[in-house]
């Protein structure tokens, strides 16, 4: 068990190093620089040179990379050129928003998907099963950003039920009021994300339950006279639940990648929107930091899922 985890982590280290190098070089290769646009257009070119030099942007790339890595290990990701603020603080404030949204969406996804998967498996091959199959298929193949745009149009603008921008309303009172307002702002993107992200959990749970239904221990329970309801509750569901929990890791990685779209559509100030803004400002420090963070989060999400799966299923463990 520990061997598996250790080995996975050993493989992760070179991956992160290569990613950091790749990201750093790509960000450097982007045309333009962070100062030309933000300074008064009449600014002296000499002053611009001075700024570039001061920030070490004329150094050879390996020197810059080395400085960056050294700072990284001191917990310093540099300053954002656009916001004039340490990147760690900037991203920290945005990351909270993104992670809340991702967490909320994941929980909702399970709330929708677990009953659906169970119900479909219970009525295998009958009408409810086909309805749920059509539902998961339809939600799976429509591009998510189209759903978001149509969702914000209907529920945000036409019906006016939900806020359309930001993460908190400007009039929210501190304390309970602000928590309520934050929750209100993630409600619509969360529901849309959950309604349209059920396919993996539903299909996996359905096939797990159908397998379990035909297994010997269920037949034994039935022949002992255990009521059908209890068979599902205590015997089948318990056994099928853990593999399903493993999907949480994958699902969070998927949500992070979708956050670029969700946050753009809802103008929600999270890491995805920060990335889109930073790209147009050539804010190297923020861009590199964000790509690195997303990459590492991807890795951790997959690792989490793999660990849960290897606990459940001894066949995948490495000896």
């Amino acid at each position, binding site marked *: 068990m520990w061997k598996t985890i250790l080995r996975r982590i050993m493989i992760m280290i070179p991956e992160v190093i290569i990613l950091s190098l790749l990201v750093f070089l790509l960000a450097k290769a982007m045309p333009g620089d962070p100062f030309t646009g933000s300074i008064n257009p009449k600014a002296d070119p000499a002053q611009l040179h001075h700024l570039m030099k001061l920030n070490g942007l004329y150094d050879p790339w390996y020197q810059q990379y080395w400085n960056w890595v050294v700072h990284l290990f001191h917990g310093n990701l540099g300053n954002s050129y656009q916001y004039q603020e340490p990147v760690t603080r900037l991203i920290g404030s945005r990351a909270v928003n993104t992670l809340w949204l991702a967490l909320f969406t994941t929980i909702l996804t399970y709330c929708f998907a677990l009953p659906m998967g169970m119900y479909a498996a219970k009525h295998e091959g009958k009408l409810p099963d086909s309805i749920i199959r059509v539902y998961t298929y339809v939600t799976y193949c429509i591009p998510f950003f189209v759903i978001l745009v149509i969702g914000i149009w209907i529920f945000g603008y036409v019906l006016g039920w939900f806020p359309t921008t930001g993460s908190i309303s400007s009039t929210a009172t501190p304390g309970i009021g602000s928590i309520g307002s934050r929750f209100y702002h993630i409600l619509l993107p969360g529901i849309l994300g959950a309604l349209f992200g059920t396919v993996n959990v539903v299909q996996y749970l359905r096939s797990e339950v159908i397998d379990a239904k035909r297994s010997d221990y269920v037949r034994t329970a039935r022949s002992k006279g255990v009521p059908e309801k209890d068979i599902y509750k205590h015997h089948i569901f318990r056994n099928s639940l853990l593999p399903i929990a493993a999907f949480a890791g994958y699902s969070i990685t998927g949500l992070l990648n979708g956050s670029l779209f969700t946050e753009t559509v809802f103008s929600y100030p999270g890491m995805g929107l920060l990335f889109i803004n930073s*790209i147009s400002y050539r804010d190297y420090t923020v861009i590199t930091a964000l790509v690195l963070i997303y990459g590492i989060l991807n*890795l951790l999400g997959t690792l989490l899922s793999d660990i849960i799966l290897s606990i459940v299923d001894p066949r995948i463990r490495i000896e």
Partner: protein
Amino acid sequence: MEENLNKHSNISAADLKRLTKEADDEATPSSAKIIWNEFRADKPAMVALFIVIAFILFVMIASLFINTSQIMQTNIMNYNASPGTSGFVLGADSGGRPIAQQLIVGARNSIGIAIGLTIISSTFGICWGLISGYFNGYIDWGMQRVYDFMMMLPMTMMIIVLVTIIKNYNAVTLTLIFSIFYWEGTSRLIRSRTLSESEKDYVAASKTSGTNSFKIIFREIMPNISSLIIVDTTLSFAENIGVETGLSYLGFGLPIQTPSLGTLIANANDPNNITQYWWTWLPAALLIIVLCLSISYIGQVIRRSADASQRQGTEN
């Protein structure tokens, strides 16, 4: 051949014909025929097939008659003209550009990129999966590490960074950039199937008789998993439509002068457009939904026909 056979045997030509016909009737139908039967048994699938083919043909032909640079010229006089007004079937956007023509050219661009992306990324993914699955050991291990690394990359972000680096990119470079990141799903599927396939007896027999490895992979294993390949390619085509349009929606896909379904939907980013001028973005959004649903429905039908136990079409 027929005469030759008759010289050495006493079967008459008529008998031979009848026997051949009987054998043909009893033989398993070809996979093209199975798929066709499946479509005939499923009316919605026929409708989906018709929609997709007719739409792609219409868009390809109609866009030949549209001068893109001319329709993309700004004309303040027609600012947000509503549908039905003089010469604007579907209205105009805030730059006075006609939506209907943009929709046709945009759909052609988006579908074209999706086709290109599907061909390139599927070919690469299939080769990668076949080679990785067939050669166990170090080759597989190395290829799996590359796969892991690609899976870890935040794809959308990497594409955006690459698009910003490349100056004057166009549809072709964009397709190539997308292809770098979208082969993993296919390769994983093909690899796992190849792993189980290469343990079968016919592969062992070929190996023993000294057949070239690449001949085994591409002439023996690949035809045997072709149904999986067809299904996967159709389904990833539907997904790939979302890739380009999504990036264009964010503003990092096709340049603004080139219409795309994504840039049309991006009109909805303006609160005025989304509430008052629905015609600037809603048709493109609905079009994407219909296209994706139809294409993946076709994929589902082909998948069903590949699995004999799920077929609905009866042999006739």
